[in-house]
């Protein structure tokens, strides 16, 4: 039994029926990703793979062959269509709440902003990268970046509520489990490391960001995102939860910060929502921004090489093909260490740590 979502002034409060819809989406996802997804593997082993072997005289060689064979299978089709529809229904049900709650949120936002200890710096001229503008990632209408009104914070408000539903509460009552994973691993690997300035890249509603305020109380915590409505929300959320963070609108591949201005740079499932050239540029930017001896630590979804079974790796691609997390397909086969070396890190100072059931953590230490 997961904990309920932690309540605070800037979180939307669903009405009775809105909540019923949202919790149904949560239950539906849980069932589809549990029994039904497990069933797709049974179907694969019992009929799809045997048919392929019979026709081709060999076993399948990679996850892409599995996908091509599974896509037309009736069991898998209904599974995929159901998961896709649930995702669409989830956003719709949350948007109902956010639209209804927006006047209250605006009032709260202004109050929190006026008495803020942290800061919010927006850049209205920032170019929204193609990987965000081309398609709305994980089907959130308008993505992270669409400003619908002055001081709009709807994208962040939608994301924070939907993230909890999407994760079926498994990211914790504050949806910050990834921040705990990363900061916990940093402390375990480097118990004497005491960063003074920390940067969280691609913070969205700032859930994981806030973990660093408590994990490193001596540090000044900064966070960036490309989406203004997410940053306004994250800023208000941090303030109402009494955490001091400096939020800024920036592209992680090209920020406004000075050289060597951070001791620790982190990201939580940022990579797969970017693009091929952006990934290289983000790592270069990390190298530029880190002080000598500083560290970058990036968490993302399991890569192909981290999956014990080819079928499991195929399942991790579902979101790419059905939920607009397009870059994941390429990313899951890339050599992170090589990318980091290209960006300027020394090979021996780069490692992949396994933080939880195959979720890789790229750790890169800048030469002192």
């Amino acid at each position, binding site marked *: 039994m997961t904990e309920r979502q932690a309540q605070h002034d800037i979180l939307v409060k669903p009405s009775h029926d809105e909540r019923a819809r949202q919790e149904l989406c949560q239950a539906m996802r849980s069932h589809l990703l549990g029994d039904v997804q497990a069933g797709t593997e049974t179907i694969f082993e019992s009929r799809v793979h045997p048919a392929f072997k019979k026709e081709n005289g060999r076993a399948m060689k990679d996850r892409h062959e599995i996908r091509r064979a599974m896509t037309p299978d009736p069991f898998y089709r209904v599974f995929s269509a159901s998961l896709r529809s649930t995702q*669409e229904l989830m*956003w719709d049900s949350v948007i109902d709440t956010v639209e209804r709650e927006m006047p209250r949120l605006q009032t709260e936002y*202004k109050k929190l902003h006026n008495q803020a200890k942290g800061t919010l710096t927006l850049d209205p001229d920032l170019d929204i990268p193609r990987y965000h503008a081309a398609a709305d990632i994980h089907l959130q209408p308008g993505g992270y970046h669409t400003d619908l*009104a002055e001081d709009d914070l709807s994208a962040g408000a939608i994301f924070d509520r939907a993230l909890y539903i999407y994760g079926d509460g498994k990211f914790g009552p504050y949806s910050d489990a990834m921040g705990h994973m990363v900061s916990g691993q940093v402390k375990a690997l480097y118990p004497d490391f005491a960063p003074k300035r920390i940067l969280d890249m691609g913070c969205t509603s700032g859930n994981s960001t806030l973990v660093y305020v408590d994990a490193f109380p001596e540090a000044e915590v900064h966070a960036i995102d490309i989406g203004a409505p997410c940053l306004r929300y994250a800023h208000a959320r941090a303030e109402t939860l009494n955490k001091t963070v400096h939020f800024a609108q920036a592209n992680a591949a090209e920020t406004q910060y000075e050289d060597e201005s951070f001791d620790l740079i982190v990201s939580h499932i940022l990579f797969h929502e970017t693009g091929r050239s952006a990934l290289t540029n983000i790592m270069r930017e990390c190298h530029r921004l880190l002080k000598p001896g500083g560290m970058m630590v990036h968490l993302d979804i399991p890569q192909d090489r981290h999956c014990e079974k080819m079928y499991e790796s195929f399942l991790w691609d579902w979101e790419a093909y059905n939920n607009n997390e397009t870059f994941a397909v390429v990313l899951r086969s890339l050599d992170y260490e090589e990318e980091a070396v290209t960006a300027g890190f020394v090979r021996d100072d780069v490692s992949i740590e396994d933080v939880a059931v195959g979720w890789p953590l790229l750790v890169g230490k800048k030469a002192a």
Partner: protein
Amino acid sequence: MTDGDSISIPRNAKGKRPQYFEDPASDKLHFMIMALVEELSVTRDRLDSVERVLERKGVSSLADVDGFEPTDEEHRQRNERRAAYVARIMKCFADEAAQAARADPAMDFDEVVEAVAE
């Protein structure tokens, strides 16, 4: 944005939707089923809330609802309403059967257009 302003948020995500079934109409029918599943759950939750509110206020208990025995007249009314409900949902079968049973088979649409144009 000033205090109290409402906002209209887009409901459609950018990006082409995969087609899961041979006939795109099936994708739509499937989505409709999923949405109905959702709405039925909303109704069930709402009923659950009503029952619990009544219990908390001491009006009736959950056991009263679970142990509810309709009178003969209530039972008859309920059966009638349920039968009408089923018939309404299954009307497409009734329509097709009624067409098939006609002594004078229905004309094609184009034939009707021609007939009424005369």
